């Protein structure tokens, strides 16, 4: 592959193997094949399954070859051009100065064949979608590194990827400017069972398994029809499921965050992680405007937290901006302090905000109770009012918890807002991050002397709200939390 820089390049032919094995192109055919199989009326036999497997593999191979053949990319002096498409050719050109980040990832099969996948993020704003991403799938490792170094041209070219392989032999040759900010401790994995997102993964896997079993022809599925399980057996199964769930959460967290490392190298933060798929993300320090500290209900209990960086123009910010996937709160605060100066203690919100939180938390429960009384009287459904009462009782701690999460504060160079109960999120932002203020006041808020203030930011979710702060504090806070004098426009005469 010794072509000039402007000449279109091809990905490695070895990627055809990867795509055949993972059915990358053939996956789109599955919804077509199932009805076809149904119409043709294949009998449920082992032969059917074998034939289907062979046909799908052949289609997969054909699809992989075609898309490899029709795919080309070129990193010219001013723009990256990616050409693809079987019948309709699509040519996408992304100017180099629009490139926000380059991610090099190595899924297990790619690693086996010495390939990497390069994702080029060219988001124009904070409303990033997959549309704004270029993927060059299946180039040799060295070519991937060359591409990354070249596209992020602010850095010197030829910098090796840090800790590229799990063997980690490149540490000695790393440039001296590199500074390690954080390293994942294996004992942090013990937090995983208390984190919602890691618990969801095994549940989703079970769901997929069930769907797969349902889609297979009946003859292949062994017959489980035994006697109906008795209640004690069900209870025992549930009790056994809890540690199993916890274990899978830990394993899931380990797979995703294996050997996580965050280093600062020159003008960028580099995060590397993953056991099977090695993922390598670079964020430009100049674009970082702050960070969020998220603590779920279970995480607060063991004082764990996660940290995300808020980076302007970063697509898929939730995944890419992650700086500490899971760790102790103290470590999280230390890391957040490196991103942005902590503005000091937060101010709580007035008691009227507590009343509003309680009313909202109780409303659903009381409504169910009221409907339940009617249902119990007319239909004899006694469990509906009981559920309503339970919901209402649970609403009280939830309302109080939501109230205590509320807070805002402004320091000399930064400000912070916090809210949420199930997942409490505190955003700490530089004052220069604010591109606008939005103040909202409903009829009820007006009567209670409250208002919600949203700091509009060109990073993360686009806006961070201080919910139900005292109306009189709004002009003071907005002036203190934005750079320059423009926010003074809000001040009452």
């Amino acid at each position: 592959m010794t072509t000039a820089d402007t000449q279109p390049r091809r990905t490695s032919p070895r990627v055809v193997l990867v795509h055949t094995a993972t059915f990358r192109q053939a996956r789109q055919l599955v919804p077509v094949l199932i009805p076809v199989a149904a119409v043709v009326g294949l009998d449920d036999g082992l032969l059917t399954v074998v034939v289907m497997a062979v046909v799908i593999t052949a289609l997969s191979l054909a699809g992989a070859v075609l898309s490899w053949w029709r795919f080309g990319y070129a990193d010219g002096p001013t723009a990256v051009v990616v050409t693809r498409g079987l019948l309709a050719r699509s040519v996408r050109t992304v100017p180099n100065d629009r490139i926000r980040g380059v991610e090099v990832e190595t899924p297990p099969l790619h690693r086996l064949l010495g390939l990497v996948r390069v994702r080029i993020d060219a988001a124009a704003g904070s409303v990033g979608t997959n549309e704004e991403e270029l993927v060059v799938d299946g180039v040799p490792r060295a070519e991937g590194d060359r591409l990354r170094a070249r596209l992020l041209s602010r850095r010197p070219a030829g910098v090796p990827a840090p800790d590229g392989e799990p063997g980690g032999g490149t540490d000695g040759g790393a440039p001296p400017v590199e500074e390690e900010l954080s390293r994942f401790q294996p004992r942090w994995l013990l937090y995983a069972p208390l984190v919602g997102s890691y618990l969801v993964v095994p549940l989703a896997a079970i769901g997929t398994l069930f769907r797969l079993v349902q889609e297979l022809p009946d003859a292949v599925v062994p017959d489980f029809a035994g006697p109906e399980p008795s209640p004690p057996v069900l209870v025992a199964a549930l009790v056994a499921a809890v540690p199993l769930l916890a274990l899978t959460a830990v394993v899931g967290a380990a797979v995703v965050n294996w050997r996580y490392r965050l280093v600062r190298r020159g003008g960028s933060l580099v995060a590397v992680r993953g056991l099977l798929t090695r993922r390598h993300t670079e964020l430009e320090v100049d674009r970082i405007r702050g960070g969020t500290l998220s603590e779920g209900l279970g995480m607060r209990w063991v004082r764990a937290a996660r940290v995300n960086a808020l980076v302007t123009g970063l697509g898929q910010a939730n995944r890419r901006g992650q700086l500490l996937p899971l760790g102790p709160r103290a470590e999280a605060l230390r890391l957040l302090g490196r991103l942005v100066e902590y503005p000091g203690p937060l101010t709580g919100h007035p008691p009227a905000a507590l009343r509003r939180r309680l009313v909202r938390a109780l409303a659903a429960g009381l409504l169910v109770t009221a409907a339940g009384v009617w249902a119990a009287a007319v239909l004899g459904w006694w469990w509906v009012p009981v559920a309503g009462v339970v919901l209402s009782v649970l609403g009280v701690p939830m309302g109080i918890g939501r109230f205590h999460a509320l807070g805002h504060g402004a320091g000399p160079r930064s400000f912070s807002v916090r809210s949420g109960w199930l997942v409490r999120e505190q955003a700490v932002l530089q004052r220069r991050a604010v591109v606008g203020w939005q103040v909202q006041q409903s009829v009820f808020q007006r009567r209670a002397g409250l208002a919600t203030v949203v700091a509009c930011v060109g990073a993360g979710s686009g806006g961070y709200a201080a919910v139900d702060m005292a109306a009189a504090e709004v002009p003071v806070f907005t002036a203190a939390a934005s750079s320059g004098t423009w926010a003074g426009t809000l001040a009452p005469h």
Partner: protein
Amino acid sequence: MTADATAPVRDPAWPLSRSAINLWVTEGVIGALFWVVVVTAVLVFVPDGGLPSPLRWALVAFVVLEAVVTIGIRPWVRYRVHRWEVTGEAVYTLTGWLTRTWTLVPISRIQTVDVTRGVLQQLFGLATVAVLTASSQGTVRVLHLEADVAQRVADDLARRAELVRDEAT
């Protein structure tokens, strides 16, 4: 109403064009006609036994109430609430009728300025100026200005944003 003691921030100085009231009334009439058609269809085509008579009256009451609010009340309340202002440093609007929203965007952070004219707006000679920033939530919309005013405001803002633009993110 505008000099409310519980208002969190000051109100922008300028009202919208008075034609905005006519536009909102027209919108209300169209909406009310839609509901009249729907409810009439329900009353005519659902047989007598299919719908209890209190529900029929509730439907009629809903249509009348909706028409009164959206034609007779909401346009005037909205007109009294909605205000806008362009200061030396920022664009500032107040919108809403029950829930009020004040939005302030500094001129230095403006990325694009759009002028749009809907079908009804063209009928009344009105236009909307939308000021966009890097944040998906930091968009200011000045609804229903006279078309020539809107164009002048947009041109002025775009020119000034070019002059004072800092890092625009």
